[in-house]
Every structure is written in C-alpha cells, then in structure tokens.
C-alpha cells in the first residue's frame, strides 16, 4: 500500500516536543529525573521555542501551570519524572480538577518491560490520578505519542476543562518511529464536550426572567472558562439584574460595575447572601452551587425559581433543584437569552442590595479597611493596594483568612486577574501560581498574597524566581497564626487554639538569601511607603506585613446554617 504521507524517523521525545510546539505551548514547568531524561535531552535542543522553567518541587510546577492557565486562558504544561515526582503532582492535579483548569501533565515512567515489577521509581500513577484527572493514558510505544498528545490537549481545553496526564514509558521516549507530523484533534467519538442547546429552555428561562420582580444572578468561573465575559455583561446590562459572584467568578464584572452586588458564600458579602433567600428568580451562570456558596441546602433559596446555565449536565440538579435548566456553553446560550429578555432596571430591588451592603460597610468594611489605631489590618493593606494599583494587577492568593480578605476587597477591572484555589483550598498554591501568572502576563503586576502558614508551604519556589527572575510582588500577611483555623477554634471550639500558633522566620531575610529584595512592616505609617517601594522596584519583592493577631473574617455563614443566617459579628453566632 502506498503511503501518501512522508515520514521521518523520530524518537518519541522529539515527537512530543514537536506536538507541544504545534499546540502553541510557550512555557513548560518541570523537573527532570531518570524516567524522563530522554525528553529533557531532546528539550536541550528546543529551548528557543519551549521555555522550560525549572521549579524547585513538582508541586510548584503543577501550581505554576495552573496559575499560568488561569491567567492566559491557555493550557498549562508540566513535565515530571516517575515515582516520587509524579506523586508530588497529585495535590496540584486535584486542585486543577476541582477548579476545572486545563493542564497537560507529561510524566516519565519506567521501561515498559519493567511495568509491574516494583522497578526503581515505579508508581501506578494512572490509578493514583484516575479520580483527579479528566483523562489519563499510558504510552508504551512512541508511535502513539502524536495522537495521544493531540487528544490530551483537546480534552484538557474543551467542554468543562480539566487536567489530563500522560504517562510515557522510557522506551517510548527513546525509540524511533515513522513520524508523519502532528495533527491536532477536535473530535473524539465517545466524548461530548458540550450538550446541544435546546432553544425551548432558553425561551422558558427568558419568560421566567421577564416575569420576575426580584431576579438575581449568580455568576461563576464557567463564564471565564467559556470566554463569555462580554456575552455575560451584555446579558446583565440589558436585563438590569443585580449580580453576585462566586470566589472563582470574580472579575467577570469589574468591581465597580453598577450591577455587581458582591461576593457570595461563607465569607461573601452580606446583601447577596441575605437576598438569595428573598429573590423570586435565581439565575445561576457557570457555577456549581458548591457547599461554601449554598450553606445549608434545605435553607437555600427555597422561595426562588432557579434557572441554571452550565456546560456540564452533571452539575445541573446535583445540589439545587432547578426550574429551568439551560444546558450548553454559556458563550452560545447567553446571547440567545439576552435576545429574549426585556430591557429593564430593577432599581428598587437593587436598592435593597445597596442598603444591606451599606450595613456591612459600616460594621465591617470601614473599620477593616480604614482603621485609625491599633495594629495593621489585612483590609487596610488591600485599601492601599487598591489605591496604588487601581484594579489593574493580577491578584493571586493562597488559602486562609487573607484569601478571603483579598477576594473580598481587591478591586479588579479585568477578568482572569483573580487567581485562587477555590474548590480544594490548597495552602501552598499562592507562590507557584503567581510565578505561573507572571509567565502568562509578563507585563502585568502580579501579587502573591500569603499567610505566614501557607508562605512556608512552597517557599522553595523563591529559588525558581532567583534563577529565572519571574516578577512577583509577594506580600506575606503575618498574623502569627494559622488564622482561618484559629478563627474557627475561637468561634466553635471555645478558643482552644490547638496547634494554630505558628512561629515563622524573618521572611524578608529568607528572601534576601534568595537574592530577592524584601522588607518588614510593623507600623501603619510605614505601610503605604513600603508598598510603593515594592511597586517601584522593577524585580520581585517580598513584603512581610505584621497584622493583627486575632482578627476574624466576617461576615460569615456559619457551617450548617442557611445563607440568610449570615452574621456580621462573632457575638451573633
């Protein structure tokens, strides 16, 4: 049989790198080792096209790829060797899975003939990652590589995105085969990335919306993942409906958009939580009714008719029963809905949000963001950041109290500018994710906010910065506690502070050892000048800010309570 395609002899490693170039990959985060050496050897000749960042721990690589993907909208790529390196990726893969972030992980594996023999650095990474990947596959023959990589990129980035893992045995990296070129994939016969749009349900949804007196929109990261920010803004602007965001939906509407009524959830704003239980029609767009958003389900929006727009059918009716389900890609469904909704303003209803949010402002936000005495608060740090960055930066946060403060208070003009670990709540995410964010947006200011606990969970990545010069503005908000856990201990465990008291090094000195400029701030008077100095410095900078030890994040929907039982003060719990 005549072969119409011309082929060249190529190793599996070369075919892999060619595939990455053809997929427009520009940055790889990785760490070499025995079972992936052939790929690294091939990479040695391809660093012009593929910028490889050597991290200091594989967890750093996967979080960096995650941050890169969130900010760039592209698929992140990770290299790691077999065994301990592959297992070091596990937390980050789980993090990407639960937050629907597209990442392709390439991991080395022992020679095919050694599989199952407990060979040196052999782990069954396919089985380990099976529940936390959208798809995974083991390659034992080099000729499989082009197709498998094409499938991996297609699966990771299409539909509801997610991480995929390709496990490549060492022989498949070394052996040569007849390579006929890379062909991207946009179809897999058993895979349905998005459901058919059914216009009748969009009509039903529009009818409900048009008849509503107190409609309320909840928006999530689905809009960002679907690149549908513009379509969403058009829908909101025309329908005039007050809209609140989930932690990961932040930025779809600018902070100052008149219909942006704030953040949902356990530490979200007062008004959107309370009024969730007073609206008559609830329109959920690209969000999944996580338990941190809904609080107690049997007290959640029981009075409302619920419309749910989502690309993933398994999310619909999973936690909250909907009246009208609009399956599909929001990029397609939102414009159809916008056409059918009437142009309205809901000024009376919007006023209710403003009034309740004013109450929160008086009781919580103002004293937190503009204190005049006592030690520095996390909120006032954000006030200064807002003043100096005017919502233009990328705000990456770790996990804990400071994460809630950053997400609540950072003003943000743009989408893909709030990077935080939502579903998994992974401490140690912040610093590597910020490094990834820098490579996605090298000309923007990237902040990494961390607590004194999380700061030490992947602090080794300062070494990555040392070597490659990623520009990250690191702010350690040091309250000398594992603050969020301490808060719960105070509120729910009679202030029995069991192992939440944490001693930390002088972070500025640690930074100095990595050749990173840094400073510590203790006094209010020094705060703004210090942040100005940090922003003026052209390179990475670490600022450790000593903040109040015993501050709590409020408002709060206590666990097991309904959203409208949100409290403004500890005394109300």
């Amino acid at each position: 049989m005549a072969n119409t395609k011309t082929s060249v002899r190529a190793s599996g490693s070369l075919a892999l790198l060619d595939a990455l170039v053809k997929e427009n990959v520009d940055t790889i985060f990785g760490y070499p080792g025995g079972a992936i050496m052939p790929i690294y050897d091939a990479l040695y000749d391809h660093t012009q096209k593929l910028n490889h960042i050597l991290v200091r721990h594989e967890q750093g690589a996967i979080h960096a790829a995650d941050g890169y993907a969130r900010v760039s909208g592209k698929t992140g790529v990770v290299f790691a060797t077999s065994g301990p390196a592959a297992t070091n990726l596990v937390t980050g893969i789980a993090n990407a899975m639960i937050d629907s972030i597209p990442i392709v992980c390439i991991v080395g594996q022992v020679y095919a003939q050694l599989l199952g023999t407990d060979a040196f650095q052999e782990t069954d990474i396919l089985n380990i990652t099976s529940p936390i990947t959208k798809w995974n596959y083991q390659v034992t023959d080099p000729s499989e590589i082009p197709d498998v990589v094409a499938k991996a990129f297609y699966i990771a980035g299409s539909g509801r995105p997610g991480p995929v893992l390709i496990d490549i045995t060492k022989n498949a990296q070394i052996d040569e085969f007849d390579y006929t070129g890379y062909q991207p994939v946009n179809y897999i016969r058993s895979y349905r990335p998005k459901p058919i749009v059914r216009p009748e349900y969009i009509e039903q949804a529009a009818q409900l919306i048009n008849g509503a007196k107190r409609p309320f929109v909840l928006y999530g990261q689905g809009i960002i993942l679907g690149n549908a920010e513009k379509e969403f803004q058009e829908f909101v602007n025309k329908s005039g409906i007050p809209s609140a965001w989930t932690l990961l939906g932040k930025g779809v509407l600018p902070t100052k958009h008149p219909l942006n009524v704030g953040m949902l959830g356990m530490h979200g704003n007062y008004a959107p939580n309370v009024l969730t239980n007073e609206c008559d029609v609830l329109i959920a767009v690209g969000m999944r009714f996580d338990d941190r958003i809904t609080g107690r389900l049997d007290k959640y929006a029981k009075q409302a008719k619920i419309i749910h727009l989502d690309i993933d059918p398994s999310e619909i009716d999973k936690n909250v029963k909907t009246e009208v389900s609009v399956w599909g890609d929001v990029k397609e469904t939102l414009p159809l809905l916008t056409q059918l909704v009437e142009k309205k303003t809901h000024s009376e209803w919007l006023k209710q949000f403003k009034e309740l949010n004013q109450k929160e402002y008086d009781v919580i936000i103002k004293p937190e963001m503009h204190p005049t005495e006592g030690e520095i608060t996390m909120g006032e740090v954000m006030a200064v950041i807002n003043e100096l960055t005017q919502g233009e930066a990328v705000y990456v946060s770790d996990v804990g109290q400071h994460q809630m403060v950053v997400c609540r208070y950072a003003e943000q003009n743009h989408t893909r500018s709030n990077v935080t670990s939502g579903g998994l709540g992974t401490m140690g995410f912040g610093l590597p994710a910020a490094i990834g964010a820098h490579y996605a947006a090298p000309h923007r200011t990237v902040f990494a906010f961390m607590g004194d606990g999380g700061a030490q969970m992947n602090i080794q990545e300062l070494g990555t910065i040392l070597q490659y010069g990623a520009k990250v503005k690191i702010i350690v908000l040091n309250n000398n506690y594992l603050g969020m856990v301490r808060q719960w201990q105070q509120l729910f465990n009679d202030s029995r502070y069991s192992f939440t008291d944490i001693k930390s090094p002088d972070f500025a000195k640690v930074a100095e050892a990595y050749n990173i400029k840094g400073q510590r701030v203790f006094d209010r008077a020094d705060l703004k000048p210090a942040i100005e100095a940090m922003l003026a410095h052209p390179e990475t900078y670490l600022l450790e800010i000593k903040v109040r030890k015993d501050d709590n994040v409020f408002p709060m929907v206590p666990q097991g309570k309904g959203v409208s039982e949100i409290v403004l003060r500890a005394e109300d719990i």
Partner: protein
Amino acid sequence: MQKIEHTLTIYTENQIGLASKIAGLFSRRKINLECLNISPSEIEKIFRFTLVVIESEAVMKNLVRQLEKLVDVFIVYSNTNEEIIWQKMALFKVPTQNIIKNAKVERLLREFGANTVVIRDDYTIFETVGQDSDINKLLKELDKYGLIEFVKSSRIAIIKNSEGIHKKVMDMEKNHPIPDPIVNEYLDKKNLIFDL
C-alpha cells in the same frame, strides 16, 4: 427516597484502566456494586459494562451523568428490573456418585432446566441460567447431594426498548465532529425523577 435495584448499561471504548475508573465513581460515593460484567457489544471494539446497584432514583440520575462525563464512555442507561430482561448463569459441581445413586436428581435438574456440562468419575458439573431466585432454589436442592463447588455469574441484561447503540455510534461518526448526542431527555420529565 426508596432504594431499589438498578441495572446500568455503559457503552465504552476499549480503554485500559476504565474499569477501575468506573468502579471508582461508585466507591468514592460509598455505593456497593452488586455485580459487574464487562462484555463486547454488538459493535466491534465497543464494550458493554453491566452493573447492578441498589440506590435511589436521584442518586442514579447523578451517577449516570458522572459516568457519561468520562471521556471514554459513550452512553449510559439506568433501568429498573421491569425495563430489562436479565439473566445470570451458575455452575454446580456435585459428586457423580451421589447423582448416580439418586434418581431424584435427574428430575430436579430437568425441572430447573439445568444442563450437564461435564461428567467424570469423581464429579459432574451442571449449569443453569436464570434469575437469582431460581438459581438459589437449585443451589439449596443440590446442597443436599454433597455440592462441592458453586459459582454464579454477574447479571447480564438487555434493555427492552432499546435499539442498542449501533445507530448512535454510526451517527456520531458520520456527524463528525459534532452535533452532539447529549439530549436533555431528563428535562422533559424531571419532576418524575428528581427529589432531594
């Protein structure tokens, strides 16, 4: 909500590791698999999993969607016992001596529609096909004749009103790259099936 037997029929690609991936969706929800069968289907290279679980309708609906989300899964059906024809197979090993001595055994076997598979000096193997109640009855009877060994297969089932997936797969391939075969069939009858 009441928990009843549901038979899941899952059509999949032939993919290593898929069985454990599917099983994992159940174990992480602490749902027991009563039985699991993997077989070829009417289409070459497409496999058919048949699983039985005892769960409520609401849980089943969620499970079906989670299963359909797996990249290598084509389509999933969940059916109650009324909607399917199902069978199991059983093998019994009995000492040949005991059977020869007993004329009743032969009548018994005929009654249960059991067949002889192997006859040796030391033992005889019978097989029967049926539902659990029939098989269990025969088991109880044969136990009286010194049953040496017994094994029962997993359930296999045919859905009464299904055309298989031959047409679906052909359509999916013809319509490359999409339109999409997910139709929100549940939406039209959601009140029947959803209850928190």
